[in-house]
């Protein structure tokens, strides 16, 4: 297994950035991206499962990966090959997302076609969530390396070891995991690469366990008429419940309301200060920028922020210095770092 994670800048960590078009490649690489990930939805997939006449820029009815809007995906093999070749020329690895939460039997005919295609052009890394697909790839495509998606919800060391029974290269930590848990898993498994979210959107629920169909709106953004019932005949403090419920809801929507949806500050989740603690952990080798559906400008900004943060961390900045950098950067989110409402890795970063 290749654990040589040193980037060209010798920072020790790679920045994994989303890409959905060859036109984005130079800008993202210049901003500091050292790995790319993308989705690929070929036309034959749409012909098989999606009603062409009602596909819009909104989303595919049956997604091939977790981000199922057309604009978040590469839509031709030719373009995917261009991205792969151009990335390779720059020494940048490309990861393909095949990380739908699950794939029934009907999907496999097309998954095989896709895996054959990407094998032919040279793509060797796929990000997968469904354990059936991991099994399929391990048995049929030994040259393809698996990255276990954040949707697999690896939150303990045993689970990390479990996935070693496949062609495992890397595990992506889920959004809800604390620093202590993450570091323990990384240290216990020196032969596995790990990756975590450094910047990206947030949801109060665990995305790997959520069954809601986003085609009909994310459940976490729904608002309800609600009522609390006692389970033990005691009085319920409705004021406390309402305040807590507001905090709970705002985890998923805590962007300042006057900021447009495409802005980088929208509902940002961050784990930049964690870099001070993990910079020496060689197998925690990549930091991920979430945002496949975002515009190039947003992706570029996020990559630049991550790149600056990594340089700071590698020059010895402690967590307070990194928090100060975050506060300066995300100045619109006035309470960022003062509360844990924006933290991916909450708890004990300063310890």
């Amino acid at each position, binding site marked *: 297994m290749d654990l040589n994670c040193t980037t060209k800048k010798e920072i020790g960590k790679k920045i994994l950035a989303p890409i959905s078009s060859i036109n984005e490649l130079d800008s993202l690489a210049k901003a500091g991206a050292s790995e790319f990930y993308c989705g690929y939805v070929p036309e034959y997939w749409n012909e098989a*499962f999606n009603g062409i006449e009602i596909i819009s820029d*909104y989303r595919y009815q*049956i997604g091939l990966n977790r981000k199922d809007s057309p604009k978040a995906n590469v839509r031709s093999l030719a373009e995917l090959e261009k991205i792969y070749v151009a990335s390779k020329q720059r020494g940048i690895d490309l990861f393909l997302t095949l990380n739908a939460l*699950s*794939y*029934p*039997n*009907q999907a*496999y005919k097309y998954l095989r076609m896709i895996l054959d295609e990407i094998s032919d052009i040279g793509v060797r890394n796929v990000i997968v*969530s*469904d*354990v*059936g*697909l991991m*099994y*399929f790839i391990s048995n049929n495509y030994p040259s393809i390396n698996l990255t276990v998606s954040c949707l697999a919800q690896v*939150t*303990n*060391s*045993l*689970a990390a*070891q*479990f*996935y070693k029974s496949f062609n495992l290269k890397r595990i992506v930590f889920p959004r*809800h*995991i*604390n620093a202590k848990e993450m570091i*323990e898993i990384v240290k216990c498994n020196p032969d596995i690469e790990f990756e975590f979210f450094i910047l990206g959107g947030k949801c109060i*629920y*665990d995305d*790997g*366990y*959520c*069954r*809601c*169909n986003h*085609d*009909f*709106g994310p*459940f976490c*953004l*729904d*608002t*309800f008429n*609600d009522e*609390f*019932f006692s*389970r*033990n005949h005691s009085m*319920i403090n409705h004021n*406390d419940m309402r305040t*807590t419920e507001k*905090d*709970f809801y705002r*985890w998923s929507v805590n962007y300042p309301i006057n900021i447009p949806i495409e802005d980088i500050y929208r509902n940002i989740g961050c784990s930049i200060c964690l870099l001070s603690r993990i910079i020496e952990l060689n197998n925690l080798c990549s930091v991920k920028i979430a945002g496949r559906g975002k515009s190039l400008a947003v992706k570029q900004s996020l990559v630049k922020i991550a790149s600056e943060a990594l340089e700071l961390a590698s020059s010895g900045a402690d967590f307070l210095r990194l928090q100060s950098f975050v506060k300066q950067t995300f100045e619109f989110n006035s309470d960022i770092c*003062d*509360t*844990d*409402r924006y933290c991916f890795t909450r*708890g004990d970063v300063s310890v």
Partner: protein
Amino acid sequence: MCELALYSSNYGVIVNLIKQKLSYNTINGIDRLLISKYELVLQSCSSRYPQYVYFGNSFCQYKMPGLQELKAMIDFCEQEDLKFVLVTPPLSAYGASLCKVFLEHFIAINAEFEIVINDFGMLKLINDMKYPGKVILGRLLDKTVRDYRITDLEEQNYYTEKGFDYFSSLASTSDSFSGFLIENNITRIEYDCSQHIYKGNGLFRYDFIFPTEYITTGRICLFGLLERDDASLFDLDNSCTKQCNKVIQVLSHPISYPKRNLLGERIRNTTAIRCGNTVYNINNELNMGEYVDRIIFDADLLSPPNVISAGHGFHQ
């Protein structure tokens, strides 16, 4: 006809339900709704007396019983001629160490209880410890998407015929997923959705959980936030105060959300229940697919009785 199992993380709930049956001491409207569903389950089973107790929790490691409570439940099952099944949730190191203690106990008493897993770390632990009991794939591990907010008709309008067939198929029935399960000696699978009548795979037998169909879950729990200070509101530490034993929430959908999504599909006006870290839809009908031979009545949302308990705390 199916066998019947009762599922809860609470000793008192199981004991009360066995002893009192439909005259269970209800506290609120949700209890009464669940008991009416229990009657429906009883009508569909081969016997009105349960054969199994599923003890533990599918979603939250802090709702797992302590070892003393677990032992008390095993003793109770022995007295009442019930088969004991351990249910395990997604785990952090905290939960994994708790489950390891349980496995050590099972091995020490030469027990071969079935274990429901909702985290592949648990499967690794079971294999590492060479535990001989059978493993059941829990409802969190077949991640097939479904959505209680949309009617069948709207789904059929939204998807193409092949798309709807895709959407209505369980991932765990795929040849590849099945191959993985068989290789790991897993021949029983749980699911909880009655919106679609899923086609099963004859290689497996299925547990059908009723009436709760979980919608979403996560490590952050609304009720868990109640007694936290503002600065560490969302900390993922192990300081749960079990507020979920005191309060439950009903969510009537929706108020401000449009009744149609961006593509114009109508969203059903329905009700969900939040208990602990999980939100559930309550199914009305027992729409079971093929090869279901056990109905698991989810009694975990029933209010825990104050009177009957194993006399021990949760984590000992």
